[in-house]
């Protein structure tokens, strides 16, 4: 392979519509901190959005192969704890810890995946959920190592705020690109075939067990990486990372955004993280409703969570392909308008 063919391959990639869009998105996101000079927004909201985009993408890849996990928080936490412990106890640099954390998470993911290979929809959901419960029980037994509910401080690759924002963006971009390449590869095709109909996939000679396990390992690797990033952004890790919400959020994000697509989990992460962060801000707006509810004094956060549930149900019922399908429809509609206009002009010209 000489220089020319490499150059041609690279320019071909640059000519791809999808690549141009993706590049545009990354550039726009990268420019954000220049315009938004707010530490909370950049360091907490935007960075969390990017981390959760990766986390939801990892969940999405698993669902792409027809496997729905209800216990992904276990892998998020394993990745986070692995990198935090490596950094604090052994002095491993956080950037190395990031990959080792991912690898450890993938290693445990391999074992869990091995147990799940033959299980169908709800059985799989149960086992993964159960695994998360077992993990948190075991971790809670060793408070001297894992720090229990209080947790312990962890170092970060780069200082929190804008530098970490860029580090997260870079790592997430590479990771999501990798996930995309996997989805578009021969492996991805096998995942899709298994999702559509496992029996038929098996019949045409796909080793379903192998590919399901593969999806599990790749997914848990990136979930572990996301866990490391989340820990390093918070500069502290505790058993709180295993909370049930962390298992459900990637699912909600992927479904709301659009299951099985590249952009779905990213859009979902933007929408759901906004809603999640909104619950802190929304309080003054929602507080006048408090006489209606005698259960809590501060209604904002709880009411937002009810809204989140309703939102999820409505999306599943009326927009089964997620928000991204809506965007595609709008895009198609606009383009269609353009082309018909052009067509009309051409006809006039004739």
């Amino acid at each position, binding site marked *: 392979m000489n220089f020319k063919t490499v150059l041609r391959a690279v320019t071909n990639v640059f000519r791809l519509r999808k690549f141009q869009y993706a590049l545009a998105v990354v550039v726009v996101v990268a420019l954000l901190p220049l315009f938004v000079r707010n530490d909370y927004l950049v360091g907490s909201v935007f960075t969390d959005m990017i981390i959760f985009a990766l986390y939801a993408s990892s969940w999405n890849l698993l669902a792409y192969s027809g496997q729905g996990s209800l216990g992904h928080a276990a892998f998020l936490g394993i990745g986070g704890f692995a990198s935090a412990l490596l950094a604090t106890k052994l002095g491993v640099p956080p950037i190395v810890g990031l990959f080792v954390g991912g690898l450890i998470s993938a290693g445990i993911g391999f074992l869990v995946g091995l147990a799940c290979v033959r299980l169908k929809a*709800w059985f799989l959901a149960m*086992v993964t959920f*159960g695994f998360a419960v*077992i993990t948190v029980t075991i971790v809670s037994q060793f408070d001297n190592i894992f720090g229990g509910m209080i947790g312990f401080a962890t170092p970060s690759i780069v200082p929190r705020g804008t530098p970490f924002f860029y580090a997260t963006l870079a790592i997430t971009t590479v990771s999501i690109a990798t996930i995309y390449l996997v989805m578009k590869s021969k492996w991805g095709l096998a995942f899709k075939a298994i999702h559509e109909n496992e029996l038929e996939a098996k019949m045409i000679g796909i080793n379903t067990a192998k590919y399901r396990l593969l999806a599990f390992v790749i997914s848990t690797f990136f979930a572990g990486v996301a866990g490391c990033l989340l820990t390093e952004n918070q500069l502290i890790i505790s058993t709180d990372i295993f909370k049930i919400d962390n298992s459900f959020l990637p*699912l909600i994000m992927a479904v709301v955004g659009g299951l099985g697509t590249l952009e779905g989990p990213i859009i979902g992460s933007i929408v759901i993280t906004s809603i999640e962060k909104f619950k802190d801000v929304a309080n003054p707006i929602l507080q006048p409703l408090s006489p209606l509810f*005698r259960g*809590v004094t501060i*209604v904002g956060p709880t009411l937002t969570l009810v809204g989140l*549930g309703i939102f999820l149900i409505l999306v599943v019922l009326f927009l*089964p392909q997620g928000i991204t399908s809506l965007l595609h429809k709008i895009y198609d509609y606009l383009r269609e308008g353009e082309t018909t206009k052009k067509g009309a002009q051409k006809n006039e010209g004739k």
Partner: protein
Amino acid sequence: MITAGLAQALLFGVANGCIYILLATGLNLIFGVMKLVNFAHGQLLMVGAFVAYEVTTVVGLNPYVSILVSMGSVALIGIVLEKFAFRKIRGTDKLNEIFISLGLIYVFQYSATLLWENSYTIRIPSPLAGLSVPLGEVSLSYDIILAMIIVVVILIGLVFLTKKTKIGLAMRATSQKSDASMLMGININRVYLFTFAVGAALAGAAGAIYGILFPFNPAIGALPTIKAFAIIILGGLGSIPGAVVGGLLYGVAENVTGYLTNSTWQNAVAFALLIAVLIIRPTGLFGEKGE
């Protein structure tokens, strides 16, 4: 002393078992007929407990009468859920069921948090509270005895419903082959609606009994669902006797384990067992062979 403690743990196990039986039977009924798993089933239990609480404290009904009210209202909720949510996704990807249930969990749990005080001390005031039959070193409260009787009555009613009535026959036919029963003139939409309502009513009854026996809060729904699911996986999908035996055994085993060992391990041990069973038999102990 050890034996007295053990006996007490056994009794609590039976009380817990009563609730698990109702929950698992309802879940199993819905699964058997509709091939659908509603992960928000435990949230229906929680709603049932709060309905019974409101009916007894505000309206002033006897708590044991409030079980009926609770069953009725939760059945109504079930009808709404089946008609407007689960029916729409029937025949689509199985993952959709999990998504819808998850949304329902959020809606029910946090609505309850908004509407009722989130304290762990709420309990339905029973007129029989404190009364018990002394049995040697331990005592058996009247509430537990009554709860057991109610569970038995409900189960007999359920068996009668499925074995002796026309709609029960339709339910059994649909559970065996829904396409064929549709061709035989069974309106399976009605059968599904009815099944879901009955399953929900059982959860409502379980909730009211839970409220009488134990203190509760809006978060109680989550774990019982998982346990009920574990019970039907172990006891056999679609088998009501399996759910009854499994529920009782699980309740007793859980409490005795909790008494003998550290109670923080209770749930983890239960899940470890469940996972072990599923690894060996992916469709459950008595499940049918794969599709």
